[in-house]
């Protein structure tokens, strides 16, 4: 590296490692890359590792998926089963099902790999959702990270559909029912529905094509796009640097944490194996998608309890609770009972995805934000997030309404009605409650800053009064509790200009001002304690 050492040891041959590194640097420029990134700082918080769980489970899915492709036959040719699972002997099934049975029972390690692949997929999407919620509730999506928020959102949606095409591949009775469900939704599209369905399935459902088509979508198209998005997502994380929670010494212009090398290399590398270990352990312990118990798909058969994997559960809920409305006009049927859920399905996801843009429009904030919000300090955003989660969970209840009915001894009809009403009401209630809780927590923070921490020590004053001693917070704690910014609600200004002429205010600006009032008005945040308030209380009469 340095010229002095190079000249002093001219005669001596450099060690092998150094020579390899030199060789590579001459061609790839790795030294400058390493120099720029080896000391890259990452802040430490457990919630910053949720994205890592996603990344690692994604890698695990790719690794196990490659193994599965070696044995899976994406074909719908009909064959007779003669493998080692007795209760299906002699049954007719597609080659896809047959080869999945072969993987499960006759390929060494096949079942374990299949289960790792499937469990990792469930965990992957779950981790993406939780990661997204972490980003949402801490406001990490704000400038400059809006694009990365969208990349992440796309990954979630693509992950859902990769999962769907994946679990449909074995052509078992459960997934076949799911594909039929999807086909029904496609059919409900006005005018072009039938055409679309014929196009997707190469003729009437189920035809002989969809497994092969889903296969290329599942192993090539979607994961290819996802891999590209993951790389872009990570490049942007590097480029933007990681966000951090407020604290002493942490500013919008620095990152306080540990360097990539060696600390995070070791941590992240170790964490990969921990994630792999946990998923492998779960896969070794618990069965998932036991296709042998489900049987091969036949369009004339169906089972109760036919649900999709959890991440598609909310779409199932939409369909299950939707009244079976239908309009017949001039010999054409408009199946609103299916079409409306199909329209709401993307809207559920889009509702959370557009929030960052709504928020930035309302605040008009063009600054960069690298310090995270505590959820309580952004009550409207937090309340919106909780309302969305509530909405999502209500739909999940709808999707599993039969199991709620059998396991809690309820009537499935009552659950359906509950979901129909809660679909509209529950998010509102959740919003109001969450906002109240946030404001309450803000008040508590304010109280703590001004009056200190409750120490639990009761003191009796000479005149007989009992008081609890409050311990003042440390300077660090005071900083952490008061570091957040508080937005001021947008004012539209006077309705007339200086000449007394009525000023024209655009409708969108009025809406913006209204939303801003709602988000940052008096009822939506507790003014944080000022230095003057603090001084006045702490200087004067001491504790009380």
């Amino acid at each position, binding site marked *: 590296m340095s010229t002095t050492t190079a000249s002093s040891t001219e005669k001596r041959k450099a060690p092998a490692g150094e020579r390899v590194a030199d060789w590579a640097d001459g061609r790839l420029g790795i030294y400058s890359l390493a120099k720029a990134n080896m000391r890259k700082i990452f802040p430490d918080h457990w919630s910053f590792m949720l994205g890592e769980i996603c990344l690692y489970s994604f890698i695990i899915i790719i690794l196990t998926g490659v193994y599965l492709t070696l044995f899976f036959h994406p074909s719908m040719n009909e064959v007779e089963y003669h493998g080692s699972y007795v*209760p299906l002997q002699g049954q007719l099934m597609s080659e896809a099902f047959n080869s999945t049975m072969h993987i499960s*029972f006759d390929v060494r390690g096949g079942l374990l790999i299949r289960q790792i692949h499937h469990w990792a997929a469930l965990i992957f999407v779950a981790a993406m959702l939780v990661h997204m919620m972490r980003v949402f509730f801490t406001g990490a999506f704000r400038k400059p990270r809006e694009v990365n928020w969208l990349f992440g959102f796309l990954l979630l949606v693509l992950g859902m559909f990769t999962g769907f095409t994946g679990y449909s591949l074995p052509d078992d009775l459960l997934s076949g029912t799911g594909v039929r469900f999807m086909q029904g939704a496609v059919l409900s599209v006005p005018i072009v529905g039938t055409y679309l369905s014929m196009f997707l399935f190469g003729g009437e459902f189920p035809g002989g094509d969809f497994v092969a088509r889903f296969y290329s979508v599942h192993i090539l198209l979607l994961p290819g796009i996802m891999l590209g998005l993951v790389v872009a997502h990570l490049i942007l994380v590097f480029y933007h640097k990681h966000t951090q929670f407020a604290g002493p010494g942490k500013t919008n212009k620095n990152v306080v944490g540990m360097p990539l090398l060696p600390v995070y290399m070791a941590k992240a590398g170790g964490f990969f194996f921990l994630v792999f270990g946990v998923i492998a352990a779960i896969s070794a312990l*618990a069965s998932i998608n*036991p296709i042998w118990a489900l049987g091969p798909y036949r369009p004339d058969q169906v089972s109760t*309890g036919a649900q999709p994997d959890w991440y598609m559960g909310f779409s199932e809920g939409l369909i299950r609770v939707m009244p079976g409305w239908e309009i017949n006009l001039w010999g054409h049927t408009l199946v609103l009972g299916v079409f409306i859920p199909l329209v709401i399905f993307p809207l559920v996801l889009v509702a959370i995805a557009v929030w960052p843009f709504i928020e930035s429009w309302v605040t008009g904030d063009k600054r960069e934000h690298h310090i995270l919000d505590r959820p309580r300090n952004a009550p409207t955003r937090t309340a919106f997030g909780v309302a969305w989660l509530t909405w999502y969970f209500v739909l999940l209840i709808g999707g599993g*309404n039969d199991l709620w009915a*059998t396991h809690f001894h309820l009537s*499935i009809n009552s659950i359906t009605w509950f979901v129909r009403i809660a679909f509209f009401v529950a998010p509102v209630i959740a919003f109001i409650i969450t906002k109240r809780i946030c404001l309450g927590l803000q008040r508590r923070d304010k109280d703590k800053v001004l009056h200190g921490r409750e120490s639990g020590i009761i003191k009796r004053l000479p005149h007989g009064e009992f008081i609890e001693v409050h311990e003042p917070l440390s300077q660090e704690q005071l900083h952490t509790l008061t570091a957040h910014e508080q937005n001021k609600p947008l004012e539209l200004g006077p309705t007339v200009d200086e000449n007394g002429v009525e000023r024209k205010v655009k409708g969108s600006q009025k809406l913006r001002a209204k939303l801003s009032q709602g988000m940052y008005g008096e009822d939506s945040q507790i003014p944080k304690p000022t230095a003057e308030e603090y001084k006045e209380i702490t200087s004067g009469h001491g504790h009380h």
Partner: protein
Amino acid sequence: MKKLSARRRHPLAAVVVLILALAATGGLYAAFAPADKAQAEETSQSLAIEEGKKLYSVGCASCHGTGGQGTTDGPSLVGVGSAAVDFQVGTGRMPAQQPGAQVPKKKNIYTQAQIDQLAAYIASLGAGPVTPTDKQYSPEGADIAKGGELFRTNCAQCHNFTGEGGALTKGKFAPSLEGVSPKHIYEAMQTGPQNMPSFPDTTMPEKQKKDIIAYLDAVNGEKTESPGGLKLGGLGPVSEGLFAWIFGLGALIAVAVWVAARTAKAKKS
């Protein structure tokens, strides 16, 4: 003999003679008639019916009427057959504890002999499906795979892929078939209890019923193995999703917290 001849013109003499004659004829008949097996069975059968009627009056009559004709609280039992009684009472469903969407199974408090007596009484009210014999429902030698196909075609839409049960409308449900004896499964198919449709031999021959029983025994019996590990109730993606969230992501977040807590912290000065 004087006394006897003195009373032979008594107005009741003829009656007495008649009674004696009848008693003698009956007695002689009973003594000399060939007392074959059928005869003995019929006697015990009528005895069983008698006993069954007594049990019926205590346990069932309040809802099904004193003669099994049914009331507003319970359907008529005329023609339901002994198989229905054996199923309903044998699984503890009847006598019902309380009215409701559906009568669940519970602990059976009758002995098999008592159930047979009840069944005999109900069967005597009108012909119906007969309690099957061991030969009819024993799954031995049946075609398991064929049974699976039949099960998925006829039963799975309510009872789930492997008979774990499922929900029906308004609080009714198709119960889990785990641990249900072959005899009761056979009887349920034959008689169609509660919300279940019946599958008489004309639509589902005995052989097919056996196949289904054999399939259930293979995939949801005592000796069934779950090759993939914990079965998670055999309920499909809902329980799998719950498991993935709680034990999968839950464990991973716990690990993340652990890893994040173990860091090379700079010493505070």
